[in-house]
């Protein structure tokens, strides 16, 4: 019958609305469901997974030694010329010339965090750090030299 169908239509429509209202009322009254993280306040407790790709860093040990041989594998692997390796020739105690890095230049502003350089490195000299707050006032600060001053290549790394 027409009237019955009409009433049923109105009833079902209202019912579907009430179901939605009940769901939102549940969230309105249950504050434990809130998932907001208050970022700058929770800096101290913020935990990043160790694979998080924040920026490329070079690993140095306590003796200020790194494992980079200057082979430029990372430079070749990089899709956007983020890495530039400037090499020099060290004179070893035996009087032989040995290739070593002078500067490991890293352009953070060009980096897309694709991880290809880290994968390409044969000596695991570089890795991805978990830092992510990269904002600076001057663009030049984003061009970094990754090897620390006066650092040397670790003994035995070829």
């Amino acid at each position, binding site marked *: 019958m027409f009237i019955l169908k009409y009433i049923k239509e109105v009833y079902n429509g209202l019912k579907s609305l009430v179901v939605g209202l009940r769901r939102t009322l549940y969230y309105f009254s249950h504050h434990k469901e809130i*998932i907001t993280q208050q970022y700058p306040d929770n800096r101290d407790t913020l935990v990043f997974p160790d694979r998080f790709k924040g920026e490329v860093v070079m690993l140095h040990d306590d003796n200020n030694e790194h494992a980079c041989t200057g082979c430029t594998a990372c430079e070749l692997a990089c899709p956007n010329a983020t890495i530039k390796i400037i090499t020099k020739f060290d004179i070893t105690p035996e009087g032989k010339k040995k290739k070593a890095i002078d500067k490991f230049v890293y352009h953070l502003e060009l980096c897309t965090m*694709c991880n290809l350089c880290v994968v390409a490195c044969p000596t695991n000299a570089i890795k991805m750090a978990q830092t992510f707050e990269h904002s600076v006032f001057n663009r030049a600060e984003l061009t970094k030299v990754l090897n620390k001053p006066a650092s040397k290549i670790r003994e035995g790394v070829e």
Partner: protein
Amino acid sequence: MVEEIASTADGNIILNLGPQHPATHGVLHLVITINGETIQKVEPHLGYIHRSIEKMCESLTYRQFIYVTSRMDYLSSHINNHACALCVEKGLQIEIPSRSQVIRVLMDELTRIASHELWWGAMAMDLGAFTPFFHAFREREAINDIMEETCGARLTMNYMVPGGVMQDIHPNFQRRVKEFITLFKSKVSEYNELVTGNIIFQNRMKGVGNLSAADAISFGCTGPTARGSGVSCDIRKLYPYEIYEKLDFEEILESDGDSFARYMVRVREMSQSISIIEQLIDNIPEGDFQAKTKAVLKLPKGEFYQRVETARGDFGVYIVSEGGTTPYRIKYRSPGFSNLSALDHMARGSKLGDLVAMMGTLDLVIPDIDR
């Protein structure tokens, strides 16, 4: 009105929707001819976020070019990377270990759920309901956290490499995926309560934006858009890659061809992806996560094509190789571009509010269309 409003000779108004407009999800520009509220014609103007990715890829090596494809359809970046990796592997003719195949499929399906979650929230937002967007993001964040742990990024992962995956899965991966499945299953009924069952939503979606099966095929629509019209086009079923042929899942088809059918296809697809993940998560075979490949990849001279099913439809990678280390020509077949072409056909004669709903059900990602 002080100045004459731009109008055509027969009294229709021409309205520029976009490139900056809340409903276009990016920088799509639609030139709409309307008569009152009724749409006469929709003309999409593209190119506002064209970055010439295909040309860029020609100067990158076969290892390098994959990361760029994450920036196309950023919501299914894993699946885009997957297609490229598969295409390169096809050229190199290498078999990849079964462990990496399973990991790849798991990642694909997680990405598909994440993409559909975002679409679901944005879809409701297009129709004026703001709350579902935040609820969808709660589940999506759980997936993003899983991705962050294993792949190191939340959106543009670059996890698939020729020969397998870049790193092995994180030790927590299986536990967290199971946690996500429990979370998702407990929350999925809310989707029906808040949106699907809602009478206002159903009235807005049913019977608008009709696309017949024949039209869907002739416009080249793929993915959920075509499956909503009853066209069977799931690449995972038709041209199975990786281990999809061994998996037990259903190709979701709806026959109505209206906005609601396309909506239902996507919502039901999420549950199918969950079932695929459930089948695989405890059965990740032991072994290498990457096949041994040469340091410098060189594809033999020839043409290679690989298609996969992204969250939006059929994504194809076409590589022409001259035998060098970089491709001679790369062409991507993006699902969004073809799906968008059907918009004019669907929208004619409907109301302006419906156009927004239709664009929502097409699940447009503008960088995917423009590349």
